[in-house]
C-alpha cells in the first residue's frame, strides 16, 4: 500500500512539474529575451553615487496585460505597479547597466515567479539600456529580465528534494536526546515492575484491541504509556514511548520486515491522536481574537473519539485482506 502511495507522490510530482514547465515554455509566459519598457516620471530617478542611480519606475496595468497576459495583470490594484529601482551603470558602455527592481505587494504573479526562480522572491535583477540625459525629464528605461526556464522542476529539486532530505536527518538527530531519556526511564520502570503493573490494569481493554499480544507483555505497558502521553499532549514523550512499544511489538513479530496486526492497530490508534486539549489550535484561535478559544475542545475531542472507535473496528475488519506474505528471495 505504502509502495503505491510513495510511487504516486513522486510520479505525480514529476508529471505536474514537467507539465507546468512545458506549458509555460510553449506559451512563452515569461517572454524570455524580450525587452520591457519601464517608465520613469520626471525626476523620479536620481544620482545615488558614481555610476549609480536609484528611484522609482512603473508599468501600467494595460501594458502588463498586453506584454504578458490579462491574467497576470489582475493582481494589480490601481492603474500601475511601481517598483523601487536601482541602476548600476556599466563602465564599458555608459548607456547600459544592471537594473534591480524591488517588487511591491501587488506585483503580477509572472514577475514574482520570475524573481523566486532566480533566488530572491523580492527582487528581479536584469540588464538595462537607457539614456542618462532623459532621467531628469522622465522617459523610458529598457529592461531585460533574466530568462526563466523549467522553474518548477528546479523548485522541486531544490525545495522538494535537497532541503527536505536534510530536514529529515535533522529531525532524526533531534530525536536522539529525548529518545535516550525516555528509553532510560522506561528501563527503570520495567526493572521496578511498573510496566507490568500498568499492563495488568488495562488488561480488559487491551486483550480485545490487541488479541495477538500476551496481556502481560512489556509491549502493552509501552503502548499504554505512549497513549497516555499523546492524550495529555506530551508529544515529546509520546514518540520515544511509541517507538519503544513498536520495538516490543516487533519481538512478537514472526516475519521480520512485515507489519503485524498489532502494529497496524497501534498505528491507527496513534494517527487518530486522541488528545485532551488541542493546545496549538487554542493558542492560534486566541491570537486571532476568538471570543472563546477553548470551545473547540468539544468538537475536536468527539471527532477524534469517533474516528478512534471507527478506526479500531475498521482496522480489525480489513486485516484479513492483507495477509502476511514472505517476500521473494528473503530468508525467513
Amino acid at each position, binding site marked *: 500500500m505504502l509502495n503505491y502511495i*510513495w510511487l504516486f507522490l513522486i510520479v505525480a510530482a*514529476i508529471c505536474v512539474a514537467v507539465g507546468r514547465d512545458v506549458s509555460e515554455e510553449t506559451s512563452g509566459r515569461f517572454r524570455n529575451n524580450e525587452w520591457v519598457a519601464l517608465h520613469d516620471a520626471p525626476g523620479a530617478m536620481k544620482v545615488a553615487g558614481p555610476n549609480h542611480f536609484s528611484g522609482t519606475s512603473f508599468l501600467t496595468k494595460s501594458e502588463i496585460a498586453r506584454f504578458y497576459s490579462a491574467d497576470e495583470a489582475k493582481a494589480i490594484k490601481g492603474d500601475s505597479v511601481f517598483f523601487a529601482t536601482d541602476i548600476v551603470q556599466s563602465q564599458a558602455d555608459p548607456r547600459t547597466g544592471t537594473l534591480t527592481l524591488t517588487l511591491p505587494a501587488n506585483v503580477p504573479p509572472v514577475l514574482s515567479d520570475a524573481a523566486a526562480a532566480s533566488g530572491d522572491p523580492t527582487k528581479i535583477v536584469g540588464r538595462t539600456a537607457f539614456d542618462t540625459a532623459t532621467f531628469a525629464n522622465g522617459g523610458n528605461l529598457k529592461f531585460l529580465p533574466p530568462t526563466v526556464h523549467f522553474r518548477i522542476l528546479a523548485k522541486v529539486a531544490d525545495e522538494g528534494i535537497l532541503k527536505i532530505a536534510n530536514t529529515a536527518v535533522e529531525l532524526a538527530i533531534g530525536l536522539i536526546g529525548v529518545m535516550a531519556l525516555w528509553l532510560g526511564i522506561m528501563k527503570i520502570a520495567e526493572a521496578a515492575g511498573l510496566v507490568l503493573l500498568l499492563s495488568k490494569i488495562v488488561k480488559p481493554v487491551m486483550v480485545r484491541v490487541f488479541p495477538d499480544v500476551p496481556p502481560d507483555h512489556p509491549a502493552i505497558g509501552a503502548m499504554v504509556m505512549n497513549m497516555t502521553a499523546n492524550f495529555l499532549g506530551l508529544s515529546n514523550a509520546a514518540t520515544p514511548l511509541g517507538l519503544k512499544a513498536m520495538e516490543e511489538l516487533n519481538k512478537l513479530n514472526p516475519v521480520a520486515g512485515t507489519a503485524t496486526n498489532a502494529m497496524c492497530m497501534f498505528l491507527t490508534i496513534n494517527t487518530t491522536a486522541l488528545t485532551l486539549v488541542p493546545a496549538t489550535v487554542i493558542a492560534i*484561535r486566541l491570537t486571532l481574537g476568538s471570543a472563546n478559544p477553548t470551545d473547540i475542545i468539544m468538537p475536536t475531542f468527539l471527532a477524534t473519539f469517533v474516528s478512534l472507535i471507527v478506526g479500531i473496528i475498521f482496522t480489525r475488519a480489513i*486485516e484479513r485482506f492483507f495477509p502476511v506474505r514472505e517476500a521473494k528471495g528473503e530468508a525467513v
Partner: protein
Amino acid sequence: MESPFIAITKILSTAAIPLIVFAIVLVAAIRKVKVYEEFVEGAKDGFTTAIRIIPYLVAMLVAIGMFRASGAMDMLSSAISPVTNALGFPSELMPLAIVRNLSGSGSLGLMTDIMKTHGPDSFMGRVAGAMMGSHETTFYVLAVYFGAVNIRRTRHAALAGIFSDVVALIMSVILVKWLFP
C-alpha cells in the same frame, strides 16, 4: 480569562513530565532497582533508534516535499473539491484536509490562513480548528514508527490510518454544525 479546566490541564501538561520521571525513579529506588545503571542501559538504545529511522524519514519526506513543491497537491485538492462540495464538505477546507496527512507545519499555516480569512469563530474557522486538532501527520507517523523497527511491508496500516482520518474529517464538519448551529 481561562476556565478552570484549561488551567488544570495546562498545569498538568507542564508538571506531568517531571512528576512521571520522579514517580518512576522513586518507586524503583524503593524496590531496590539500581536506577542509574538501568537508566544508562536503556538510554544507550536512543541513538541507534533515532538513526535507524533516517532512511524511512528521508524517503517519506522527500516524496511529500516533491509533491508539494511541484504544485501537484494544490491540483489534487482542486480536482476533488467539486466531488466533496457536492457532499457538503466546504471546498476551502480541501487543501487542509489533504495537507494535514502529509505535513505538520504546512497544515498549521493553512489552518491559520483559513481562520484569518473567515474568522476563528466562523463555521469555517471552527471546522478548520477541529480538523487540525483531530489530526496527526499520518505519513510521518507511519515512516517513523515502522522505520524504528525496520518494517518495510506495512500491509493495511496506511489504509486504516487514512480511513480513520477521513472519519475524523467528516465528524469535524458534522459536530461543528451540530454544536454551533
